[in-house]
């Protein structure tokens, strides 16, 4: 049972435009969400996170939006750059079960973003 889903395996955008990556979750206990970025032959690196007490978090070109009622979050990259081309993973944790203390995360399947020059 996939608790965190990224339904789009791939996304292609033009340099300078907005990239929107989507993520849905099913477990209402999740209260902390993260995005990771992964280049080929490298481990994933942390990008941005959001707590369930917020609905938006910004860090430079990256913004994450959380819609708790829809159990949906999205990552916006504006403007997109060719160096953003990578696989993006959405992840979630539930602090009530102590997983935020242990750092245990549930990941989605990933979305491959290609930004064309």
């Amino acid at each position, binding site marked *: 049972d996939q608790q*965190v889903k*990224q339904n789009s*395996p791939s996304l292609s955008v033009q340099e300078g435009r907005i990239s929107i990556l989507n993520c849905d979750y099913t477990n209402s206990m999740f209260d*902390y969400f*993260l995005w*990771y970025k992964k280049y080929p*032959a*490298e*481990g*994933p*690196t*942390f990008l941005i*996170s959001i*707590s369930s007490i917020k609905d938006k978090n910004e860090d430079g070109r990256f913004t994450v939006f959380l819609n708790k009622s829809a159990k949906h979050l999205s990552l916006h990259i504006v403007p997109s750059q060719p160096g953003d081309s990578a696989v993006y*993973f959405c*992840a979630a*944790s539930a*602090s009530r079960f102590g997983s*935020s*203390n*242990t*750092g*245990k*995360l*549930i*990941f*989605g*399947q*990933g979305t491959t973003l290609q930004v064309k020059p």
Partner: protein
Amino acid sequence: DVKVTQSSRYLVKRTGEKVFLECVQDMDHENMFWYRQDPGLGLRLIYFSYDVKMKEKGDIPEGYSVSREKKERFSLILESASTNQTSMYLCASSSGGVGTGELFFGEGSRLTVL
């Protein structure tokens, strides 16, 4: 600079062989994890450890075991490798704490079982 180091980037093993994947972190993190990454399935948690000599099963522990004898080292063991364990294995660590959740990953070990 924080670092999680996985001992082997690429391994090729035969069915039935015992396989050890080693991971070392230099950040004094309490928590360590082993994930595997497969196309279309994302990252799936195999085992994790929140303290020395402690271990917890993740979502797909079957066919694997782990060892954490020292805080900085977390080993993944495939007792008898099978072809369906061909995958990219990722080790990670975190310092824990409520609301943090940030994992630091190693570069991965790509295992092929023939």
